[in-house]
């Protein structure tokens, strides 16, 4: 049986202060993990309340105004506080330097500053909840957002500040990947998770400033009555939508690309198989990143934009499907003739394939202009993006979390409970959102507090699904927290993986590796090396 290394990053220094002032990317990663977990729990509670309210038409637990605040907060918290920083800032922060054989990220101080900016932004968002709250939807569409009462300025300011955190993380990662790879690690010997973080970082750096300035203009619109987005003063509310989606559509790929990177790692590791189409997967990330800047108008087919614009945006949107499809087929080909074990992380990778396939294919209905007219702003859209964001990103995040958990804490969770929890989340998710596809097709508009009787049954299914998911997450919290204290020591490479983070102890020492690292084999050389599991 392996035992815990005596000196590691968790135990070398102790006390709260040693954490709050740390420059160690691993500790910062763990602090991010705590932050995003709290945010996810908060957003999840909002989601459960929304579903509970929608169990029956009319009032169940809250009034219309509170309901509108709940779905706004669910969206804003999940997007700005959980899913954007989720994989890059928490898991990426911990793993990236380890995967590169580096001792830290390029700018450790900036890394810590990003975390503090994140916490400050998060607190500001919480303040907005208690100072009038926000009922605009997370999209802050004008002129509603400039007219409604509530703490819109505080919330948008929070999102603005969180944007800086995201920019700094992206900047840090780009420089780290360029400059801190271990000797021998050429660009095409990098693990695919690193490639995906690189593509993500580029979008973070290029798109987030535009969101920043858009939110500044929105704040000034409210405070000074600038007139830029306000139709009563000669401004144009649709201009806000263009500005907003110019960031927020690429932001969707900030959320999904790192998830795809994790899936590449999981599928290769648990099939013990060289990844199929390494370059195709790496380049398809950049294909997606590039196209992501050119498709924002597909959110606006019904906004009265010109037919020409809709045509171009629809056409380009379809070409997001090609690189995404390439990735999926490459993962399938990787499974072929592998040696596949169904540990919990792999279960998540397989449910990703299932759910992301649905999420991606339903995107076709929305990219097609004629069918989008009917489906736009209905529950079909809600279900579609939850299949991509939850079925894709969150499931991959959970897969990555279970994959690297033994590296982070040095201890293993209970595999049986983990499988039960993964199954509950998978089943609960499908029950919740398949019913939303159906009622969306039948015309149920989104953001409705109450609804016609014909949608009652589907809403009922959806709410029951949310409880199943809730139970799955509850079990997960219990066995994960339990494992930190009581789990059996994991050993340095429990899964038999060939990427570099498994060559150091679990948990790693503060300096990451015992000496200077040098690349001795590629990340996926399963045809040359049988990795030791220990």
């Amino acid at each position, binding site marked *: 049986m392996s035992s815990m290394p005596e000196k590691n990053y968790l135990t070398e220094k102790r006390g709260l202060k040693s954490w709050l002032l740390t420059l160690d990317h691993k500790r910062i990663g763990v602090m991010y993990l705590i932050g995003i977990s709290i945010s996810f729990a908060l957003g999840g509670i909002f989601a459960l309340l929304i579903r509970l309210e929608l169990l029956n038409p009319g009032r169940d637990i809250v009034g219309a105004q509170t309901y509108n605040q709940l779905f706004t907060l669910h969206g804003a918290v999940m997007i700005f506080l959980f899913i954007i920083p989720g994989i890059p800032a928490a898991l990426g922060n911990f793993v990236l*330097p380890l995967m590169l054989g580096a001792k830290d990220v390029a700018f450790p101080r900036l890394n810590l500053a990003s975390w503090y900016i994140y916490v400050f932004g998060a607190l500001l968002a919480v303040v907005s909840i208690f100072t009038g709250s926000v009922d605009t939807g997370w999209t802050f569409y004008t002129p509603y957002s400039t007219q409604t009462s509530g703490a819109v300025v505080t919330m948008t300011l929070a999102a603005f500040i969180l944007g800086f955190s995201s920019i700094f993380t992206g*900047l840090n990662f780009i420089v780290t990947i360029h400059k*801190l790879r271990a000797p021998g690690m050429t660009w095409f010997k990098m693990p695919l998770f690193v490639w995906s973080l690189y593509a993500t970082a580029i979008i973070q750096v290029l798109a987030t400033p535009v969101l*920043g300035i858009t939110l500044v203009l929105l704040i000034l619109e409210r405070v000074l*009555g600038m007139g830029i987005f306000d139709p009563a003063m000669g401004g144009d509310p649709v201009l806000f939508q263009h500005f907003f989606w110019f960031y927020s559509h690429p932001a969707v790929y900030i959320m999904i690309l790192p998830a795809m990177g994790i899936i590449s790692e999981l599928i290769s590791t648990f099939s013990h198989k060289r990844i199929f189409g390494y370059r195709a997967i790496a380049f398809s990330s950049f294909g997606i990143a590039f196209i992501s800047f050119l498709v924002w108008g597909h959110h606006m087919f019904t906004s009265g934009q010109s037919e020409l614009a809709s045509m171009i945006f629809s056409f380009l949107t379809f070409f997001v499907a090609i690189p995404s499809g390439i990735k999926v087929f490459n993962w399938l080909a990787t499974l072929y003739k592998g040696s596949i074990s169904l540990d919990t992380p792999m279960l998540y990778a397989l449910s990703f394939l299932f759910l992301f396939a649905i999420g991606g294919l339903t995107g076709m209905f929305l990219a097609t202009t004629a069918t989008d007219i009917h489906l736009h702003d209905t529950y079909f859209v809600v279900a579609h993006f939850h299949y991509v964001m939850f079925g894709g990103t969150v499931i991959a995040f959970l897969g990555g979390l279970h994959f690297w958990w033994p590296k982070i804490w040095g201890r293993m969770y209970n595999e049986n409970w983990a499988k039960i929890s993964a199954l509950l989340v998978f089943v609960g998710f499908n029950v919740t959102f398949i019913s939303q596809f159906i009622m969306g097709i039948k015309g149920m508009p989104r953001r409705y507090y109450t609804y016609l009787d014909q949608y009652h049954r589907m809403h009922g299914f959806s709410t029951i699904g949310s409880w199943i998911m809730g139970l799955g997450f509850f079990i997960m919290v219990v066995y994960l927290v339990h494992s930190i204290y009581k789990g059996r020591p994991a050993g340095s490479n429990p899964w038999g993986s060939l990427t570099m983070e498994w060559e150091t102890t679990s948990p790693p020492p503060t300096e990451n590796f015992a000496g200077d690292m040098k690349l001795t084999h590629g990340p996926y050389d399963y045809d040359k090396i049988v990795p030791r599991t220990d």
Partner: protein
Amino acid sequence: MSHSKDRPSYLAHHFSDPAQQSDSAKLGMWIFILTEILLFGGLFVAYSIFRAWNPDMFYNAHKFLDVKMGGINTVVLITSSVTMALSIRSMQLGRKKQTIGFLVATLLFAAVFLVIKYLEYSHKFHLGQLPGKFYTFTGVKGNNPHIFFSIYFVMTGLHGVHVIAGMTVIVMMLVRTMRNRFSSEYYTPLEMTGLYWHLVDLIWIYLFPLLYLIG
């Protein structure tokens, strides 16, 4: 972890040599500058759109900007960029006193820029050429002239914030220079500050003609 004697004190533990450290800093700074350009990019887009929609109003409104003051400010800012560059040059040659002198000069020019900006602003405040709903001036022909002044104040205001941020960083550099933190071997932070200051200058070089000259 080996702490060999050839590791200079300014080299952070996770870099293997000074070249790697300074290359990283430069790459990081260039990326940051890119994000700054994109931040202003949003405003330039807003400017272009509203100008395209209201070309006459923009033309009429821009006449109320003071080209003389704006022009002086352009010269002041370009000069400050020169003194900033000279301060780095001096440090490369190891001349600490000269570096300090040029940094102080840069700060002074920046302050002059802000003073002139303040005079311009207060004149406009006085006339009621204010952004958005506070706009009370009546002398501009065309629809919604408040939008021109909204854009003017946001663009120059955000630029002003960048000038102040730049001055803060220059003061920090001044203190670190006086405390002998830099030498002819190591002056990366000074160099980065220079890059940032040139960016601030560059943005103004675009703002001035767009707002003051062509409207």
